[in-house]
Structures are given as structure tokens and as C-alpha cells.
């Protein structure tokens, strides 16, 4: 059997005396959407920061395609095919869609050592990506500042696709969106997974999670306390895990 795309083994993260992550095991396979749920401070964000190279883990190891890797920076993670879309999206509103998608890794033609932009080639590629996502954005030269929240998510996803990302991590992609926009972004998430990529989705919205996720992992106080196939669970059970009302959680927390 082929190894999973990403395997996190016994990942711990301590900030001084505070243990933000405690021996978390998690695997992610290509083509699936994994939702991370949990209260604020449960460790979800810390976990994705470790995966995306923003924080080094204090303990444990990460395997990509079964091989251990070390990420010193988000660029390292990007090289390994892990792209993170942060909540604030990190787009430059004064630049166009195409410029944002290619920011920092522009297609260029070197003239005397000066990297001149290949505008037409970049525009063509971004048009292709937007079509692939069915994002309904007609002009890749439009400034990002003129786009809606959902369209900006689409641009951020385009950027991840353009990196040939095999794992796309999305932090609360629908938090600030209207209903119709949320629909659209969830469709984008599904399409990413159907195209053979893996997606990790952080969300507080149970409805969104049950609509799009294949598997659900619940974090609580720095531990992964539960992992369920979506088909084998329901929102009530997940909520009881998050709040700590579930008998399993109680038993676990009595021990420690």
C-alpha cells in the first residue's frame, strides 16, 4: 500500500511552560478533505502552523510520501507541496489577480539579469486556473481590491494550485462570507479534493464541515481526542467531543 501523503507522528509543540500540542498523530491522504475542529486554543492553528513550516515542532516528525521532512520556513513546506491559505489570505489588494497568483514566483524573461515579466503567459495560466475552479472571474487583470470575499478565496486557492500544491491547508475560509459565497468556496474545496489533492479545513461551522469533509478530527486542549469518518458520525457527537461532554473525553481527561 502506498504511504499516506502526509503523516504527522507524535507532534508536540511547547511555548515555554505551555503545551500547545501534545503528541498529535494524524494522516492525510490525497483526494480527501480533513476537517479540524475544536474550541479556540485547542491546538488546531498551532498544528497547521507546524505543518506549514511557520513553527518548528518541539517533538515528533512529519513524513511526506513516507519520508521524514524538516520545514524551517513556509517556503520549505511549499517546496514539499504544502500550501497554506491563511485567514487573512495574504493578498496584495493593489495588485491584479494574476500578479497575486504569481507574486514571489513570477514567470520572467531575464534581460541583462533583470527579470522582465511574461505578462501574457501568466495571464493565460491564471485564466486556465480560474476556469478549472469554475470561479466566475472573467478578468485576471482586475485588482484584487475590487473582488468579493469569496472571489478572494478563489484567488488564494489559485495561488495554491499554481504552486502545484498537493496539500492545501485552509484556515476558516468561510468565516467572513455571506451564504452564497460560502456555498461557492465549499464547492471549490470539494473540487480541490476531487482533483486528487488533499485539503485540511479548519472551521467552526459544523454545517460547512458536514457538507464538505470526508473525515473529521477534533482537538481539545492540545490533543487530538477523536477522529471520525463523516459517514460514521453526526453533529451531536462531534459537538460533545468539542465541549468535552462525551464520555470518552471525560475518561481521557480523568486519566491525565
Amino acid at each position: 500500500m502506498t504511504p499516506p501523503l502526509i503523516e504527522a507522528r507524535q507532534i508536540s509543540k511547547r511555548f515555554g511552560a505551555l503545551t500547545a500540542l501534545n503528541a498529535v498523530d494524524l494522516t492525510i491522504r490525497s483526494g480527501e478533505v480533513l476537517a479540524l475542529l475544536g474550541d479556540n486554543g485547542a491546538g488546531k492553528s498551532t498544528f497547521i502552523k507546524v505543518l506549514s513550516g511557520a513553527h518548528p515542532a518541539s517533538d515528533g516528525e512529519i513524513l511526506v510520501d513516507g519520508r521524514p521532512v524538516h520545514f524551517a520556513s513556509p517556503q520549505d513546506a511549499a517546496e514539499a507541496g504544502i500550501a497554506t491559505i491563511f485567514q487573512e489570505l495574504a493578498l496584495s489588494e493593489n495588485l491584479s489577480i494574476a500578479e497575486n497568483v504569481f507574486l514571489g514566483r513570477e514567470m520572467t524573461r531575464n534581460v541583462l539579469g533583470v527579470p522582465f515579466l511574461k505578462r501574457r503567459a501568466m495571464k493565460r495560466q491564471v485564466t486556465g486556473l480560474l476556469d478549472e475552479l469554475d470561479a466566475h472571474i472573467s478578468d485576471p487583470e482586475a485588482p484584487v481590491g475590487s473582488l468579493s470575499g469569496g472571489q478572494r478565496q478563489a484567488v488564494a486557492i489559485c495561488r495554491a494550485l499554481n504552486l502545484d500544491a498537493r496539500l492545501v491547508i485552509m484556515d476558516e475560509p468561510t468565516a467572513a462570507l455571506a451564504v452564497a459565497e460560502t456555498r461557492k468556496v465549499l464547492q471549490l474545496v470539494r473540487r480541490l479534493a476531487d482533483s486528487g489533492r488533499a485539503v485540511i479545513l479548519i472551521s467552526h461551522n459544523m454545517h460547512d464541515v458536514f457538507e464538505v469533509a470526508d473525515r473529521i478530527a477534533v482537538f481539545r486542549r492540545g490533543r487530538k481526542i477523536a477522529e471520525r469518518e463523516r459517514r460514521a458520525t453526526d453533529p451531536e457527537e462531534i459537538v460533545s467531543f468539542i465541549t468535552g461532554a462525551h464520555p470518552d473525553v471525560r475518561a481521557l481527561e480523568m486519566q491525565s
Partner: protein
Amino acid sequence: MSSRTSLTLPILAGLWILIVAGLAILQPSAMALSTVTTVLQFSTLLALVSLGQAMVILGGGAGIDLSVGGTVSLVAIIAMLLDTAGVPSFLLPVVCLVAGTLLGLVNGILVTRLRLLPLIATLGTFYVYSGTALAITGGSAIGGAPAYLLPWGRGTLAGFPLPFVTLVLPLFVLAVLLLRYTAWGRWIYAFGFNERSARLVGIPVDRARFIAYGFSGLMAGLAALVSLAWLGSARPNIGQNLELTSLTAVMLGGVAIFGGRGGLVGVLAAVLLLVTLQTGLLQLNVNTIWQVGIIGALLILVLLVDNIRMIRRTA
């Protein structure tokens, strides 16, 4: 960004026509080729310094270079001192460029390595540079600039001063190309506007800003060279007020003070407008104190018009 510059240019052009028309009515004798030459001669220094200033401000992070005037003065003095001390005259242009760049890079270190606020760092170096220039010379000019420089510094081509034709125009064209058509240009706009996102995609923001301050120093060094070639002597106060007038030109030209927005064509237009206005007022024998006030009022007016437009658009 483009929508902002597109209205800046018509406004500046309109004001310029207004000024020229006013001057033509009040002082018809000023309508001569020699006035054009004078305006462009004075514009050369300001245009060079403003180009550097614009790059620093476009790069954001509260970027500003208040030391440009002091740099111009100090570079001119250093170059002439070395020249009289026996350094071969043909090296004088090189001395100007190197000294200017180094003084600019000091700002770059203060801002990007030592994390000083640019306003404070460059205010400090402004005092150090301009103070040193005055202290070394005791306030008097150093004459005797190499004779080979003068034909270039004072020469004209069809009424256009040679330094303007050979330095200002090519440098602005190159800088516009750089900003519009290269990856580096996109990066400047990106981190000038949203530093965090630029860092996340791996753009070397600090190195780029360090270079921007060095470039501003280089432009100030060039301005010092032009002043030597034009006046034939190094004046310890030649850069006086250039920091404020260059800031005025950059903002009047449509560059946002917070960075990431605006273009260089507007800056050059604003330089020409400012110098035309100053020259016009001079021709009309308006007191220099009033001139400064009028320029200040102009700056506030143009920024107000721009603000009203921005508010309308967002409303």
C-alpha cells in the same frame, strides 16, 4: 494604482497650464526659451532626489528619506575636498556616486537592521550629514570644480540642459520600466502595500528596502555631481530644503505616503510643476517666503481633491 495616477496627471497638467497662462499675462517677457532652460536646470536636482524619495516611499513600511538634502550637500563637499586633496579629477563622478550610495545605505542599515523608524533614522542622518557639510567648510563654498565637467553641467541641447537630457530622462524611463515590467517592480508595490503577504510568499523585503535607501543615496550623489558641474563649486547648503520639496513632489505626483500606490510619471510632472511655479513667482518678484507658503497650500489642495475622490469612490 492606475486609477489614481490617471487623474493625477490631468490635474497636474491643468495646474501647470494655469501657472504658465498666469505668468504669460502678468509677465509676457518670461515666455522665452531661456525660462524653459532655467526651469529644467533647477528641476534636474529636484527630479533626481525625488526619484530616490519616490522609491523609498513606494516601498512602504513608513519609508521616507529625510536625509536627501544633507546627502547632496555632504557628497558635494566630500567630492571637492578629495579633489583638492589630490585625488585624480576624472574620479570625481565615481566619488559622488559611491559616497551618495554609502550615505544612503547607512539609512538602509538603520531602518532594516536596527529597526529604527525611517522618519527618526533619516531625520537623524539629515542633521548629521548637513551639519557635517557645514562644519567641515565653516559655511563657505569650495570652488574649483574640474573644468571638464562644466560644459556638461552648463550645456544645453535645443534649450534642454544636458544633465536633464542625459540623466533625468533616461533614469525616469528606466525606473518606470523597472516598476511596470519587471518582477522587482511588482514586489515593491506588493510589500509597499501589504508587507506581511509579501513576506509570506518569500519576497526579501528587508534586502529590497535596504537597496531602496541605497538608491535614494545614489540619486542624491548624482544630484551633487550635477550641482558641481553646474555651479562649478561645492556649496555646503546646496541640498537645503530638498528633503521637503522632494516629499512634496512625490506626494503631489500621486504616490501614497503609506506606500504601494502611485507612479513615477506623476512625480516627474509634479517636479516640473513645482519648479515652474517657483520660477514664475520669482519672475513676478514674489517674496520667497510667500513662495514656500504657496507650495504648501498647493500640496494640501491637491491631496484634498484626491481624498474627496477616494471618499466618493468608496461611498
